[in-house]
């Protein structure tokens, strides 16, 4: 099922949450809407779901204009960040809710709920109340609830945001497997770049109600359209006017023509990677990441003088950071 958002604008009072946004989601894909808080990603998801009405623009679902269709008739599954569990209902009644709204026979509901609870790994917890579940279990219940009527599209709003790191990683992998098994078109909102890179086929990076770039994780990481996208997808270091990934910088212990000079302040061993913190001769700080063998080869210690070599031109897709692009660090 494809989703197409065309020229959508949404304001809350003075605040422009979505500023003329257009985006397309392919059938069967897992797309991540990625951006900092206030970037409009959740609003975009809620507009797709029909929970917010756009001030301008259209939403097409499977090629049909769905802009005026109420949420309950869109046939989409929605998973909320804080689960939105029905607290007065058991797990069974939560998951069976959509089916009972549609007046399906009791036996059918029972069978489908059992099947779904097994799918999400909650078999045997039918009679529990949401308060008696852990955060991860509650979110799985919410997923099962959304999947009950076989939605055409699954929308997830920061689904793992309220969970511990360990549970989050586990559910992330599980979501990806679930998507591969069911093939349902999925849109996921997240502010966590690692989550987006790990789970999604396609990433839409948003900022200030606009779309900065859309593409595969690889495209975005290797050929970011601007400094913001580059900075949001992984750590960056700044040399002069250019941004570089910290592991793309080489250090030399002998002078190199035209290379800036710096002094080592501190080296930090992070397993395979060694992080070197420098101060360049113009006083600006710089962080460089070396592999452990390379770091051992150089034998760096605080106070050593090094020369910094980087090969930014290696990536033709990226415009020079000096261009008046909507720059990072604003």
């Amino acid at each position, binding site marked *: 099922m494809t989703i197409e958002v065309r020229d959508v604008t949404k304001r809350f009072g003075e605040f422009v949450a979505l500023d003329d946004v257009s985006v397309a989601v392919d059938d069967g894909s897992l797309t991540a809407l990625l951006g900092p808080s206030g970037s409009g990603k959740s609003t975009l998801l809620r507009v797709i*779901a029909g*929970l917010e009405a756009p001030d301008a623009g259209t939403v097409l679902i499977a090629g049909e204009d769905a802009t005026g269709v109420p949420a*309950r008739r869109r046939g989409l599954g*929605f998973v909320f960040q804080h689960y939105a569990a029905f*607290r007065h209902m058991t797990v069974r009644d939560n998951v069976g*809710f959509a089916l009972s709204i549609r007046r399906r026979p009791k036996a059918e509901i029972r069978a489908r709920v059992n099947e779904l609870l097994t799918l999400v790994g909650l078999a045997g917890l039918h009679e529990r109340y949401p308060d008696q579940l852990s955060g991860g279990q509650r979110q799985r219940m919410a997923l099962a609830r959304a999947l009950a*009527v076989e939605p055409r599209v699954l929308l997830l709003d920061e689904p793992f945001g309220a969970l511990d790191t360990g549970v989050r990683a586990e559910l992330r992998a599980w979501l990806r497997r679930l998507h591969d098994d069911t093939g349902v078109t999925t849109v996921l909102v997240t502010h966590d770049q690692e989550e987006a890179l790990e789970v999604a086929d396609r990433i839409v990076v948003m900022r200030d109600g606009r779309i900065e770039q859309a593409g595969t994780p690889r495209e975005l990481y290797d050929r970011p359209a601007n400094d913001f996208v580059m900075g949001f997808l992984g750590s960056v270091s700044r040399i002069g006017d250019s941004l570089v990934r910290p592991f793309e910088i080489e250090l030399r212990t002998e002078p190199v023509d035209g290379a800036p000079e710096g002094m080592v302040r501190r080296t930090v061993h992070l397993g395979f990677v060694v992080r070197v913190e420098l101060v360049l001769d113009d006083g600006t700080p710089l962080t460089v990441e070396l592999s452990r063998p390379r770091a051992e080869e150089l034998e760096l210690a605080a106070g050593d003088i090094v020369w910094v070599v980087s090969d930014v031109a290696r990536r033709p897709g990226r415009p020079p950071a000096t261009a008046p692009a909507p720059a990072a660090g604003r």
Partner: protein
Amino acid sequence: MAHSRASKLTVRGLALGYMAVLVLVPVGYVLIHAFKPGLTGVWNSLTTPAAQHAIQLTVEITAIAVVLNTIFGLIAALVLERTRLRIRYVLDLLVDLPFAVSPVVVGLALLLLYGRQGWFGGWLTDHGIRIVFSMPGMIIATVFVSIPFVAREVGPALREAGTEQEQAAATLGASRLQAFWRITLPSIRAALAYGVVLTTARALGEFGAVSVVSGRIAGQTITLPLLVQQRYQNFDQTGAYVAAAFLAVIALLVLLAMTVLSPGRRKTR
């Protein structure tokens, strides 16, 4: 906080002493006092035609007021919590006013509207409708004074429940009415029940406003609280205390319901 045992006992003694002097001893004394005429005496005192009529009238008026204010309180709470329009500040104030206004003033206000000299008095007389000095006026007075309770109890519960569960229901295909019955109402039912109990207590015991608009016509517009006063003023002290004790027993039942449904208890399911 580590308190000395002496200061702890002093504070406890102060609280218990205050409650004893003000509430416990007087209430206990009256309950005992009321049973002086013996069980038969109490029974006879409560089964006189006047007392029977008063009990029936009180129950009817209370039932009507509770039903009306439960429905209205739900609507008002939803409007006050879910509307962002400016008018909600005015409505919010109006919901609280009956709580702060003297019941006697309420009675006067109804006289000035529906009494013979009142704004609608002429029209009502022409059409043969009696409001003041009869049951409709007493119902209006009782509804007035018990307006705030359901709305005030349900409001915070609605806020705590939030709108996310209703949105989830919508994405799962529920209409607004279905979402209200199956999601909103169950999540506020404890607060609603508590509000209904408070409304019932207030309506049962209303005295000042009803006293003014009822005209206190013997055998016709005397509710239980009015009966207490009437008996006392007719030097039937024993009868007054029996009727008072009867109301006090109802109050204790209300109290029991309040304790079971109190906000502190509600959290733990």
